[in-house]
């Protein structure tokens, strides 16, 4: 059977975890992969915990269930660590990436004994430094690409630049900031 990377995203309604999952699917698609990006839907409520998923594979993906034993988990909002069992089913050979201002050792006690790899990224710092506003999306996306290695950072950055050029055709001034956020993330994620 083929190797399929399974990723679960945890965020709060309005923070863009779903968008990040769809962006990851998008950029992986552009590098020639088979992808799935889908949210777990409920009534849409700003601030409520939401889950989104990615499957990325080199062969067609047929399974249509949610992901229960992900290789990777992305936590877009650290306050979810208390509210949601973010490491549920997370494979020990995988990793969790948490957006936080805290250090790894501060985060560990909240991960319910998870003994796989733990990464942190301060998306707020990066976002404020490069965009002047808090959009956790771009840093989280770059962090997931850096950790999961589903594609080469160079091709990721190339595809993202093209997609920003398209998305921000009417406000090109934000393209540079977004690209800087991605690049900075690759250096900062630890």
């Amino acid at each position, binding site marked *: *059977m083929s190797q399929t990377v399974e990723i679960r995203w945890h965020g709060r309604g309005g923070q863009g975890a779903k968008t990040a999952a*769809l962006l990851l*699917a*998008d950029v992986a*698609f552009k590098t020639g992969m*088979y*992808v*799935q*990006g*889908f*949210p777990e*839907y*409920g*009534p849409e409520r700003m601030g409520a915990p939401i889950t989104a998923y990615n499957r990325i594979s080199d062969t*067609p*993906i*047929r*399974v*249509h*269930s*949610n992901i*229960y034993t992900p290789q990777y988990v992305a936590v877009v909002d650290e306050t979810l660590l208390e509210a949601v069992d973010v490491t549920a089913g997370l494979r020990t050979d995988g990793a969790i990436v948490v957006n936080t201002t805290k250090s790894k050792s501060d985060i560990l006690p909240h991960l319910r004994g998870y003994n796989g790899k733990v990464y942190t990224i301060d998306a707020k710092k990066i976002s404020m430094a490069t965009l002047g506003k808090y959009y956790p999306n771009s840093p989280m996306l770059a962090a997931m690409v850096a950790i999961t290695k589903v594609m080469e950072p160079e091709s990721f950055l190339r595809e993202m630049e093209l997609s920003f050029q398209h998305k921000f055709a009417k406000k090109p001034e934000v393209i540079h900031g977004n690209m800087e956020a991605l690049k900075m993330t690759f250096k900062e994620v630890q």
Partner: protein
Amino acid sequence: MAIRERLSGNEAVALAIKQINPDVMPAFPITPSTEIPQYVANYIANGQMDTEFIPVESEHSSMSATVGASAAGARALTATSSCGMALMWEELYVAASNRLPLALTLVNRALSGPININCDHSDSMGARDSGWLQIYAENNQEAYDNMIQAFRISEHKDVLLPIMICQDGFITSHAVENIELLEDDVVKAFVGEYQPEHYLLNPEEPMAVGPYAVSNYYMETKMGQRTAMNHARQVILDVAEEFAAISGRHYGFFEEYHLEDADYAVLIIGSAAGTCKDAVDALRANGKKVGLLKLRVFRPFPAVEIAAALAHCKSVAIMDRSDSFSGNGGPLGAEVSQALYNARSNVLSVNYIYGLGGRDIRVEDFEDIYSRLETIAETGTVVDQYDYIGLRK
């Protein structure tokens, strides 16, 4: 050449509609189908298509306007889900009995109550006796392909029946997946221009649509509908063959996945078939003779073909994504059982209900179902007939 893309199921169907460029689309939004008219309205606003979009005040009106447009001679369609379809109930039957070849792209969602926005098939299964053609999709690709074939089937002179193109709410409608698209001109040539033989806006031939039929005419009219539905069998296969020629993708009444030599079979409709395929592969790797029959066409119901395809199996699980509350399982269970009985089949069958209100079904669930089928075949007894899969007990 095929265009490699990644789209959600809703985007895929909206894109098919753009390529078909029908004459009229009345619509009213309801989750999870809302995006379809939203995308179409965008395409129209951007000048990418010239369909007359009619924003209406309810689904009763959207189907009424679609019926009216179709009777007038337009190629017309609408989109809805769940309770939206329930509000169309009267017009569903009107469309079918007036023999109007319009289309409905349905994004399957549970009916209230309890109120729920997620996928099951209770909406379209409830309308199974309304006289509509019903075609279901496993993924975004099939939803797109089925939409492109829709009008060729419904508008065929031997058919002239409304067609429902169904896909699973959220599971495929909101999941972005890879897809292969056809070029606009290829779709345009395949679908062709709609040339109704009779239509209300023809000044050369004034006509009456939907006259009252007293008892002395009603059954004769219904026989006409039933005959058209039977004619649709060949038309569906012919259109699928033509579609294969432009797309390389083959469709029939159903897809058989490792069914040919299977002892144990699952019969299912929709997105969960893909999940089941992974279970089949995993079990086949362990030497288990398991297979899948994924039903694509539910109306007309390919009873004889299903019974023949399952004839060699020892046991089969008929999977319903809606309950009929008859106390005797779901609609698919009832119809497949009838097919097996009429064919004097020796296959032991069990009818499981799954996925109501969006309840997830996993590869492991299917593996468990196959193991139950093995036990059923070994013991010769069916236990847990009509079981709910994934229920907390």
